[in-house]
């Protein structure tokens, strides 16, 4: 799906847990998530922490949409 969207000329970023898969399939912009069942918030942590993590990683993804890259890129996350 990511590849089709990118082919249409619309910048796209994939938030994925299995980054090596996203990369081998051909996503150009990738932001890691923390798991498959809960990509953006571990239910074992407090709600505030989950939101903080989610807010941070979505922010990284938004910046990635505006980033100029020349090759497949995995954007770094801090939390």
């Amino acid at each position: 799906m990511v590849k089709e969207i990118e082919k249409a000329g619309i910048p796209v970023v994939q938030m994925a847990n299995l980054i090596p898969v996203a990369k081998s399939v051909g996503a150009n912009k990738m932001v890691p998530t923390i798991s498959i069942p809960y990509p953006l918030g571990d239910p074992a942590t407090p709600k505030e922490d989950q939101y903080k993590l989610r807010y941070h990683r979505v922010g990284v993804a938004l910046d990635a949409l505006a980033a100029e890259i020349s090759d497949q890129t995995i954007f770094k996350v801090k939390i």
Partner: protein
Amino acid sequence: MKKAIHYINQFFGQIGGEDKADFKPEIRKGLVGPALFLNTVLDAEVTHTIICGDNFMTSNKDEAIEIIMSELEKLDFDIFIAGPAFQAGRYGVACGTICQAVQERFNVPVLTSMHEENPGVDMYKKEMIIFQGGRSAAAMRNDLKIVANYANKLLNNEELLDAETEGYFSRGIRHQVWREDGVVAADRVIDMLLKKLAGEEFNTELPIPSMEAVPIAPPIKDLSKANIAFATSGGIVPVENPDRIQSASATRWGRYDISDMDRLEAGVFKTIHAGYDPAAADADPNVCVPLDALRAYEKEGKIGKLHNYFYSTVGTGTTQGEAARMAKEMIEYFVKENVDGVILSST
């Protein structure tokens, strides 16, 4: 002595050039053109030469195959060799076509040779052994020698080595072999790891096929004016699943209006994805479709606008073909509604 049959096109069969490219297949007893040389380097007798026009084979495939098959039915042969086709595209495709048909019908080894840029390589390299050949007929002797060398090993039941060593395009088949050096996998993988850590070159034993690269779309110039859409393959839908998206091997997708919401509430949205434990996403769908965070960025002015809908399907067991089609259908909305960028979460 074992017997071989050689397939060549109208040009090498001395019928003519492009004007004779619709030449119907003929099978001749004995040797024509490059078959003469092949016969001298092969540990088998080339008993017949098949000549077929490249256009005839590529545009009347079924008829061409049928003519050749009906002739081959009458013959005994141990190996079938086509080409070499060099960089001649239609000739390469023709060699691949006839080799595949012969292999299926007669279950004998088939071999051919092409230059790596011949489109026949990508079409047929998984189906048969195609040797890496030269660009033009100047490489004829060399290319045929390489093919014959391998053919002789086959005919004499000698040990066959891997694609790279033998000089053919990898078919993506893995074989179990006893290594001469006796180094076991555990040692090899640690050696690779040490090289990797030291920043040295190493050769993987399990290459992942390279995928088609997509040109990188131009980035968003000004996020604060951009219209951002969110999509997911995590199966988040309104609890009644109005579009009846399948829980696995999805062929359907939906888009859901979020224009008056600040977050996705549990009990209003849930996941129907059968490939992961739904507990966390059902309890808080924002962990998969982070509407709360996106809305916050919209309020702060980091992005101009969050698109009024989010897009959803299920990614488990879904074929790449279906995924591509669904994405194309979503793109129609993205384009019509001036979406500037998309975030997609996958589970």
